[in-house]
Structure formats: structure tokens, C-alpha cells
């Protein structure tokens, strides 16, 4: 029986003790490049199921992941490749899940974006939006009951998720329990194809923070510096015991909902506005301005090599074998029913 190994790619090749800018930049580049590759593999018919990318949301997402520590709880959604990588998810595991390798954290069973790694502290999302907020709250409650101090949870949502009952129930509950939970809303103006005007009637989702009795932080999600600063501050506030934090990043998804979607519905004016900037380009400009263009180029090349190597490695890995796998939904002996079906 094959066991799960992280191979040589378990950790980023980058040196330790990165400065936050480097960690942010590297995570953004690794996410963009692996997602570009996944998009190509999807178009080449190499991926079973859909591919959902976080293009344009990398800075905001990565700022979340990199502010977490070991022992924290992370509940990312489908556009959080950058945050996952920044938190420490091996890039190879992302590729494994998309290519159905049984050596990945979901053992080739639950493809694409539903992956998690409970040992790392990444909750495996379900597709029902808002549902992960209360789960992250539960994990934090457990840590508090066990006396683990200074732990933080980070749950991701989009503008669409804020319309769900789960979002409301989860954030309200976390506020009642004063849990150290940061809820990051990537307000990318569209939920699939539905614009914000059909999603909510308040002018800014940040207004909601007050109603829940939590602290709110609004920022330009295309500005890497703002992401680092504001998300860092929110995580710090939660860690200090200030209760749940709501962070709303305004940005635009620079792709379709999934790779099957050409996003024709996105307003050209919004695309042309500052909201439609590509955070990677903004970051590159910043690096140039700070005289670090060479570094940026090196990070890009390292990320490219890492992605190529991961795809090569995973392509040779086994997929689940229906004759060997135990397709059990329950742990307890006797809880699985053998129903005769001919």
C-alpha cells in the first residue's frame, strides 16, 4: 500500500526567515504559476472535473496564509491557492489533488479545490459557502477548551458567501464566543456571474462588522502592501484577544468562476478601474521601484521550476485503485452496511 510522501517538494525551496514581502511575493508567484499550469492541464483534458482559479486575488489570499502560525486553523476557499501555499501547504499536494493522485491529502477521492490537511490545520472545505466559518470557530473553541493559547483561525469567504445563512450564523456565533477568528471576505464584485448589486444592498460589506459586534478592516485587495499591513493587523488583533475580525478586500477575479467560464459578464468599466489591477503586476512594479527586480525574477524562476517538477512527479503517481481501496464512509466496525445489489 502506497503511503503519502511529500517527496522533495514538501517545503518551498526558499531560505528560512523570509521577510514578509518575500514570503508574500513568492506565494503569489507560486500560486499564479501553478494555477496557470492547472489551467493548461484542464484545457488539455488532463483534469477530471473543474478548475477554479484565484487569479487577481493572490495578494489578499497570501497575506492571510502568511500571517498564520503552526497550530492555527485555516479554512480557505476555492480561490486561496496563494494563502494555502503561504500557510505551508506543499505545492505538490495541490497538484496531487487536481490530478487525482492517491498520495495527496484527499487520496484522490475528493478532487480539485476541496482539499484540506487536518494535520497542517487546513480544514477541507465543503462547497456550501459560509459553512466553514462555524467549523473554524469550533476548532478554535476546542483549542480554547484545551488551554491552547494565542491560536488564531482564519476563514475565507467571498462577496457571495456573505448572503448565506451560514455566514451570518457562523460569524455571529464566533462573536458571541469572542473567538480569535478572522473572516476574510474577498469582495471580487461577482459571485459566479451575479454582480454585487444583486447580492446585497449595503454600500460596503465592511458595514456589517458593526452589526456583529466585531472589528472591521477594509482594504484595496490589489495592493500587496495594504494586504500585508491590514490583514497582519487583523490577525494580530485576534491573537491579542480582541475577538473576531472581519476583513474585506476589494478586488476583481481576473478569470471566470472556473476555467469553463469566460467571464463575459464582467463590466469593462470595472475591469479598467483600479479594482481590476493585477496584484502580481502591482507587486512587480513595487519590487522594481524598490530596486528588487532581480529578486522578483529569481523568485519567479524558482517557482516555475517547482511547478514543473511537481507536475512531473505527480504525473507518475498512482490514482486510487477501485479493487484495493476501502470506500468506507464510517470508521466504526459494523457501521458499514453490505446491501445486496445485483
Amino acid at each position, binding site marked *: 500500500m502506497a503511503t503519502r510522501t511529500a517527496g522533495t517538494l514538501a517545503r518551498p525551496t526558499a531560505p528560512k526567515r523570509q521577510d514578509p514581502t518575500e514570503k508574500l511575493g513568492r506565494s503569489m508567484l507560486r500560486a499564479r504559476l501553478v494555477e496557470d499550469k492547472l489551467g493548461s492541464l484542464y484545457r488539455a483534458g488532463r483534469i477530471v472535473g473543474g478548475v477554479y482559479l484565484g487569479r487577481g486575488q493572490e495578494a489578499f489570499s497570501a497575506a492571510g496564509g502568511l500571517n498564520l502560525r503552526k497550530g492555527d*486553523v485555516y479554512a480557505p476557499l476555492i480561490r486561496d491557492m496563494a494563502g494555502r501555499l503561504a500557510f505551508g501547504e506543499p505545492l505538490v499536494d495541490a497538484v496531487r489533488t487536481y490530478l487525482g493522485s492517491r498520495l495527496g*491529502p*484527499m*487520496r484522490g*477521492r*475528493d478532487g480539485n479545490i*476541496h482539499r*484540506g490537511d*487536518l494535520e497542517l490545520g487546513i*480544514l*477541507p472545505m*465543503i*462547497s*456550501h459557502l459560509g*459553512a*466553514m*466559518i*462555524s*467549523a*473554524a*470557530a*469550533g*476548532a*478554535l*473553541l*476546542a*483549542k480554547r*477548551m*484545551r488551554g491552547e493559547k494565542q491560536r488564531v483561525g482564519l476563514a475565507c469567504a467571498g462577496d457571495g458567501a456573505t448572503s448565506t*445563512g*451560514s455566514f451570518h*450564523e*457562523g460569524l*455571529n*456565533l464566533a462573536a*458571541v464566543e469572542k473567538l480569535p477568528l478572522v473572516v476574510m471576505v474577498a469582495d471580487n464584485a461577482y459571485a459566479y456571474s451575479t454582480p454585487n448589486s444583486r447580492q446585497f444592498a449595503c454600500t460596503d460589506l465592511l458595514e456589517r462588522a458593526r452589526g456583529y459586534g466585531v472589528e472591521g478592516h477594509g482594504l484595496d485587495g490589489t495592493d500587496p502592501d495594504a494586504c500585508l499591513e491590514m490583514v497582519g493587523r487583523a490577525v494580530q488583533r485576534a491573537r491579542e484577544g480582541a475577538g473576531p475580525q472581519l476583513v474585506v478586500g476589494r478586488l476583481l477575479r481576473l478569470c471566470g468562476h472556473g476555467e469553463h467560464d469566460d467571464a463575459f459578464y464582467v463590466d469593462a468599466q470595472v475591469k479598467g478601474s483600479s479594482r481590476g489591477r493585477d496584484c502580481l503586476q502591482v507587486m512587480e512594479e513595487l519590487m522594481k521601484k524598490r530596486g528588487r527586480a532581480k529578486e522578483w525574477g529569481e523568485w519567479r524562476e524558482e517557482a516555475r521550476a517547482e511547478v514543473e517538477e511537481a507536475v512531473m512527479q505527480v504525473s507518475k503517481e498512482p490514482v486510487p485503485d477501485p479493487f484495493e481501496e476501502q*470506500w*468506507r*464512509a*464510517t*470508521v*466504526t466496525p*459494523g*457501521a*458499514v*452496511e453490505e*446491501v*445486496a445489489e445485483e
Partner: protein
Amino acid sequence: MSVTYLEAIRAAQEKALQDDPNVFLYGQDIGRFGGAFKATKNLAEKFPGRVMDSPISEDAMVGLAVGAALEGMKPVVEMQFADFSTVGLNQMLNHAATTYWRTGKPCPMVLRLPSGGTPGSGPFHSQSMETIYSHYPGLVVMTPATVEDAYTMLLEAIGMEDPVVFCEHKLLYYHLKADALPGEALPAFRARIARPGRDVTCVAYSAMVHEALAAADELAEEGHEVEVVDLRTVKPLDTDTLLGSVARTGRLLAVGESWPWGGASAEVVARVASEGFELLDAWPRRVLSCWMRRRSGSMRRTRRFRIIRICGRRTGRRQ
């Protein structure tokens, strides 16, 4: 000295809290108030910080339990009424129930559902939800009918690595009594022959076991011997015990309190028909609730009457 079904449930929770520091209780009004039915009376005082009032947020309550379970805790969530658990269905069916299959990591939690009809409880405080939860893979669904089972099965449920839906019958809470809490339990997932008989097998669970037993008493006076099988756990279903009983009697009546479309009773009939068709001397029958009519004790009497009518007519022992 006697113990009621409700006291057994409270005692099981108290023992679990005492024995395992990872157990905690979460639900609406279960703290100082002790719960709508007093199933957690005095527990908040005895176990400070481990018996918590929740907001009226069934989705988030179950979601919180999932997150805590994945962190190694053993949450026991009380729904105020089984009916309200529909608001938390997503978290139970799509989150708790899928986790082990997806990740290989267990999600040990218990969802307690005060279930079933009681006089005057109306359409939103009287439903039986076992059918819905049983349909989905990844869950265990228990339906204890006795004080002994209420105690031992709840402890078993809390000790289990799987998410368990524990359907308690509200009608049994105060009236059903035993002399003392049991020291030992039947094996998990095993049905029980509540009353042996050789003419017809009447399969029931939860409060309906007592209707079946009462009907069997009346039928005994007419010379009919009804074997009553108490399923105890509807998911997984103990098909072996069912087939064994039908092999003895040749006749099957499945009784439930849920609605007639599908359900545990339909599964009982389907299992026996598909795996033991040759054992049947007559076509299997079911007795269930009427559509949208579940109000009072008179409905239970009607069901008992229907059990008697069907069993009495069907048994007609071959001369």
C-alpha cells in the same frame, strides 16, 4: 427508586462528561436552564465551561461541532426539537458525514434529536427525522426504545468515532421507567427480540416498539403470537436478526412513526424482500403515520389498532 428515559439520557451525558475531558455539550438553553426537556439539568453547574448555551443557529451549532470534532473533541449537540435540525442539515449531511470518506480522519460527534409525536405537539415539534439522516452515507442513526438503551446507546454514541444521530422519543421521556441504570449493554448495531412469537414478525423502533408490544399483548389473548423486533439502531440495520425472525414466522409487519414514503420501515421490507423473499408466506406490510396528521395519543391508538388488525388477519396460523 426508578429511572426515567430522560434521566437515563441525562445520566449518560453526566457519565461521559466525567469520564472524558474531551466531551462537551452544546445547545439552546441547555446551560443554567437545563434544556427544554431538562436533559442537561444541573450539568452546567457540575461541569463549568463544558455545557454551553448556543445561539439559535442550528447550522452553526453543527458546524461548530464538526470543527471541534476534527480537533479531537467529542461534542454532543442538543437540538431543541428534532424538527429544528433541518436548519442544520447541510452541516450534518455534507460536512460531518463526508469527512471520514474524504480525509480518512474521523469526525466523532453526537446530534441529539428529541423526536416523535406527543399530544398536541403540532407539525413542527413532532417529526421523526431518522429517515433523512439514514439515507446519507457516513452517519450512524440510533433510535433507542428503552431506558436501558437510552443510557447505554448514548454512551456508545459518544464513544464512537463516527457522527451519530441519536433520536430520542419525547413520548418516552417522562413515562418510561426502569428500576435502575443498566450495567451492561447489548452489542452495538444489534436488534433485539423484544418479545418472542412464532406467527408474525413485527419490526419497530423507538416509541413504536411499545405500541407493537401492547398490540402483541392484545393479540395473545386471541391466540396469536407476535414476535416483536426492536431495531435499536436503524442505520446500520441488523438484517441478520430480521431475516432470522422472518425465517421463524414467515410474516412481516414493519412499524414506524415517520411518513409512509420511504424510511426505515420501507428499508426493512426491502431487505427482507430482496434477501429473504423465500422466507415470506405472505406479502410484507407497513404501518406508519398518515400524511400530515400527527397530533395526539389517539393517533397512537389508531396505529395500535392497525397493527392488531393486520397481524390478526395475517397470522391465520395454518391448521
